[in-house]
């Protein structure tokens, strides 16, 4: 059964608007209509000038994050019906500068991710020549969940510390730091700890948990941050043994 809903879209172009406004559109929503479906319908039939970012439409690319009825969500992963309201208000993600309308600027967010050196650091891996690292399932499970991150920035938009501290890397970056730190193939433990061991680094987190509340992929960045902090406090140092390269014998 379809219902008519009002979609309120935040409109603002920093290049020539002094104030933002909301444009309102009436749309028919089915039980399966996502907020992204509704916005794309509006773009196709009512006002094509709305700026928004999307790509995969299936919660994989991380492009369509926006503030939907006050909470950061993926527009393609949020059904109009599940909001339980006849009014759907879309705003750009907070804590990101606005490019235009619903499109937010991820430059600083990606720079923070990059500053965590999000790759395996291990000089042995450079000369791998037919050998491979062997990881037990338990070793994979230590980081697997954090590697599901799609860099959508919902956690960064929900975090009260990001909201006030420009230098804080944010939940996404810190969780990625833990992901590489605890990977048994990575050898740069001390280098990594030096990057986050700062009063604007991992210690700035107050465990408000909002990041994990909004994460659409089950990454649970708050868990990663507390485990990173625990590692610095010497709590689970023995949980990481750097893996060796093995040559797999042909059968």
């Amino acid at each position, binding site marked *: 059964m379809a219902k008519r809903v009002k979609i309120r879209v935040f409109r*603002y172009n*920093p290049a020539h608007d002094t*104030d*933002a406004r909301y444009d309102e559109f009436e749309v028919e929503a089915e039980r399966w209509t996502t907020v992204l479906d509704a916005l794309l319908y509006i773009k196709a039939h009512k006002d094509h000038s709305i700026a928004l970012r999307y790509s995969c439409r299936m919660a994989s690319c991380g492009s369509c994050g926006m503030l939907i009825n*006050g*909470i950061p969500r993926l527009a393609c992963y949020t059904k109009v019906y599940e909001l339980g309201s006849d009014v759907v208000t879309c705003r*750009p*993600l*907070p*804590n*990101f*500068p*606005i490019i235009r309308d619903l499109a*937010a600027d991820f430059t600083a967010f990606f720079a923070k991710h990059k500053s965590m050196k999000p790759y395996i650091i291990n000089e042995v891996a450079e000369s791998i020549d037919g050998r491979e690292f062997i990881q037990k399932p338990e070793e994979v*499970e*230590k*980081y*697997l*969940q*954090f590697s*599901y991150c799609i860099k959508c920035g919902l956690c960064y938009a*929900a975090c*009260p510390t990001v*909201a*006030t501290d420009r230098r804080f890397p944010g939940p996404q970056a810190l969780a990625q730091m833990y992901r590489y730190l605890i990977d048994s193939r990575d050898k740069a433990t001390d280098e990594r700890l030096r990057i986050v061991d700062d009063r604007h680094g991992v210690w700035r987190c*107050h*465990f*408000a*948990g*909002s990041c*994990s*509340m*909004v*994460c*659409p*992929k*089950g*990454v*649970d960045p*708050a*868990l*990663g941050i*507390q*485990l990173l*902090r*625990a*590692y610095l*406090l010497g*709590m*689970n140092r023995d949980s990481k043994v750097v893996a060796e390269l093995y040559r797999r014998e042909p059968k």
Partner: protein
Amino acid sequence: MKENREGIKGWLNPTRYGANRFAYWLQRLTGLGLLAYFIAHVIETSNIVYGKNAWEKMLAVTQTTEGHIVLMVVIGMCVFHAANGVRLYIAEHGKGIGRPGRPEYPYKPTSLGLGMKACIWVSVALAALAMMYGAYVLFGEV
């Protein structure tokens, strides 16, 4: 406008992101409340340097109904802040927040699981109980 940061505004609303965000808000509020009380307390007790009279005049203020209510709020703030502080201390040492695994839909975060939630509500309940006991002692003697 272009920056679109939430700023301190983001701290003020405790209702948006579940129990942990509420606890974050209350820890901050009670921390600042205790700090204010601590400063007032030092100023208040420093009255003793002006002699016995000044000291007793000051003590009389705490014997009024308003004085009792302020003290009850301080008791509540103390108990919540301390209990929730211990919870944070444990969580920030990586305990009681679950462990990473294979994410399964609907992706419930273990760090916001029942254990943490229970600790938050127990802290609130302990604060309420302490306030009630405080009220019993303070108002009981009037």
